[in-house]
């Protein structure tokens, strides 16, 4: 065949970009590039975009503008972050992060291909591997005292900055972000806190001493940098992460992605302290046109009648806090919570907080190139959750924030000469 589809690198970590080029096309030929992935449960995810070849018969996604399809404009990684499930409301999450990659097939068609066809074959195909752990990364199941989770270690002796990784009400252990961070030189504990092994099946309260046990476990590890650890946390995990920042001196750098700055729904307990939560007004659940539930307004009247004791005392935090906010978060008013926390820090003369707010980004801000997910099922609820966001803006937020998150942890967890 005259044309070539060149995709490099063919094997990479999932947060690394890929260059996609087509050469040898007739000038100005309209082509379709399609990406397909099957997850570990055989769910199909697909994306496509339509391009016009240059006069020289080339399409290079670094500069070519998609005319239509799942995204429009110049988006070199668009085929990856616009992957959509064939069955609505399925979310792409890698379960086995050590032994297998995601395989993504890229197909080239020399026409506009709106649908899959049994008869029309692609003119060229390439497969890429997207790994969630780098060479030499180790995975260890953790059952120490009460602590349950999975520890990821970079290759080498260290010491490495240690991070606890917290997800939200999805429960169990979500490993893919921790394994990617370990591939970037951090020791990461993907910490479960409910619906996992012998932990409670349902989350009924947040017992901060459990998380302190986890922090102490990590700090005691021979490969972990002292004197303090970081926390990366999203959604309900981010409310817990912020509470850890406030109360635990072991935590010196905390990333809170789209979380609340008040204690919501469940009581927070730490030693003698019990914080009464703010009630979630479930009657304020809204239903999106797709049928997904929009929880953003559950605490709509919150700021007018807030019990100050339910606010997390961010002024007590000794470490650094980075708030990552998706302004189009439809699950939570993330911006509102982060701004309140920042105001609270400032009014107490504390200067160790920073907010990165991303216009158009939704709730699920994940590592770069994670497919945009507008709404998906959550365990125990009969409607999908609306996460919100605009696909291209959300992808840009994931791209930018991942770099900022790693910089933040290196800056505050790795001692430098000037700190000695």
């Amino acid at each position, binding site marked *: 065949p005259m044309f070539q589809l060149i995709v490099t690198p063919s094997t990479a970590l999932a947060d690394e970009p890929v260059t996609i080029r087509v050469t040898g096309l007739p000038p100005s030929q309209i082509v379709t590039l399609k990406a397909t992935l099957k997850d570990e449960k055989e769910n199909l995810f697909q994306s496509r975009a339509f391009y016009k070849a240059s006069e020289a018969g080339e399409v290079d996604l670094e500069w070519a503008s998609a005319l*239509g*399809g799942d995204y*429009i404009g110049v988006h070199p990684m668009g085929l990856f972050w*616009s992957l*959509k499930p064939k069955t*609505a409301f399925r979310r792409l999450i890698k379960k086995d992060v050590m032994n297998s990659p995601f395989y993504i097939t890229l197909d080239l068609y020399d026409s506009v291909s*709106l649908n899959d066809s049994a008869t029309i074959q692609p003119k060229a195909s390439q497969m890429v591997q997207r790994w969630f752990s780098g060479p030499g990364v180790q995975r260890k199941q953790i059952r120490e005292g009460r602590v349950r989770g999975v520890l990821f270690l970079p290759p080498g002796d260290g010491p490495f900055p240690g991070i606890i990784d917290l997800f939200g009400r999805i429960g169990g252990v979500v490993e893919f972000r921790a394994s990617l961070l370990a591939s970037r030189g951090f020791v990461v504990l993907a910490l479960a806190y409910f619906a996992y092994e012998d932990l409670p099946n349902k989350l009924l309260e947040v017992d901060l001493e459990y998380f302190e046990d986890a922090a102490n476990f990590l700090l005691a590890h021979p490969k972990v940098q002292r004197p303090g650890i970081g926390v990366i946390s999203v959604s309900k995990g981010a409310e817990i992460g912020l509470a850890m920042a406030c109360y635990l001196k072991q935590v010196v750098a905390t990333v809170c992605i789209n979380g609340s700055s008040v204690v919501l729904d469940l009581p927070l307990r730490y030693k003698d302290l019990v914080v009464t939560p703010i009630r979630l*007004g479930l009657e304020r659940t809204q239903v999106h*046109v797709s049928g997904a539930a929009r929880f953003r307004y559950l605490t709509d009247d919150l700021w007018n009648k807030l019990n100050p004791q339910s606010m997390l005392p961010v002024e007590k935090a000794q470490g650094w806090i980075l708030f990552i906010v998706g302004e189009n978060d439809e699950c939570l008013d993330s911006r509102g919570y982060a701004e309140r926390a920042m105001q609270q820090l400032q009014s107490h003369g504390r200067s160790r907080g920073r907010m990165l707010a991303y216009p158009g980004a939704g709730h699920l801000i994940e590592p770069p190139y994670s497919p945009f997910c507008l709404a998906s099922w959550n365990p125990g*609820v009969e409607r999908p959750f609306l996460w919100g966001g605009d696909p291209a803006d959300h992808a840009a937020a994931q791209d930018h924030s991942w770099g900022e998150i790693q910089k933040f942890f290196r800056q505050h967890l790795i001692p430098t000469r000037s700190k000695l």
Partner: protein
Amino acid sequence: AQLTAAPLSALVDEPVHIQVTGLTPFQVVCLQASLKDEKGNLFESQAFYKANEVGEVDLERDASVGGDYVGVHPMGLLWSLKPEKLLTRLAKRDVMNSPFQVQVKVCDPYFPIKNVVPGAPKDSLTLERWYVAPGVTRIQVKEGRLRGALFLPPGEGLFPGVIDLFGSAGGLIEFRASLLASHGFAALALAYWGYDDLPPLLEKVDLEYFEEAVEFLLRHPKVLGPGVGVISVCKGAEVGLSMAVNLKNITATVLINGPNFAIGNLHVYRGQTSLPTPTNIEFTSSNALGFAEFYRTYEQTGDVDSRYCFPIEKAEGHFLFVVGEDDKALNSKAHALQATSQLTRNGKKNWTVLSYPGAGHLIEPPYSPLCCASRIPFVSPNIHWGGEVIPHAAAQEHSWKEIQSFLKKHLILDVTSQL
């Protein structure tokens, strides 16, 4: 607790007053509506209300705090109905013999948590929503080439005649014509493909077929002349505009979210042809749920090049353009603008544009639930029609009144002007 609704039985485009009494002060309740269409598809909606100090909820006065809509929307439970199966569109087939039955319930707030069974409702009732008023008659039309259904109001007449054209779904869609007849019009729901012995697929728009329809209507003893009206949506509006330009006796044309040029099919009339406009299918977009949006595909052709546009300045009657600004199937706003600019350039003032922010492609009679995406025959993938629930409902309510006024104003001339 007691749930009341008045009237219990009404036309589908008539409002209903829903109230609840007998609650405790400030009690939070859930109002739910459900409907099963003629194929057994379930549609549901819910809203949460807080009773006042005497334990009452009045949908005409009180704001919903959550659910399928928020704010004061007396008819919200009806127009926010959503299908259990995504992409199902609500459309009544048998308009004469049965209404849609809508079950309305008041119950304790129920949240979609798995394995939690909702308690029994405190009270419930059933609404009947009819597509015909008492006395409206339906006549199957099979004359010459014509295929359709004529709906006549009760009485001797004379009634202004209207031809009702739907779009890309084909077949015969009757519910709008039957409603117009319930409001005093002689309405001919006209099929033009995918029905009876008509072509299974629309190949060309043969305007002589539609001319036969105009003549048929005007011949009818109960129809007021000297002209007829046309109400048309989407592909139907493309045909409606072509009719107004080429045919005589078209006095008033309502064009809902249609193009002002030929799309996909040749238009022919007595040896003259209009070629279909070239399309750039590579400009098809996909929304976040994977539904196709076609509104950009004429961006480089029909939207900007007047060579393709119908010579609308040749039409003798009046135009009412109804535009959903959030239409994702067609760039309706641009088409209406282009058509009316062409009229203005030719010194004509025979037009009005009603443009609705937040409304989508499928602007239907009031209280019809928004269908934001569905399948149509011969087209894959699923099509995103656009529209946001609350503004779309408002657009349907407003435009329906305007459409009837417009048709009556131009079709029912007062006696003095006929001399």
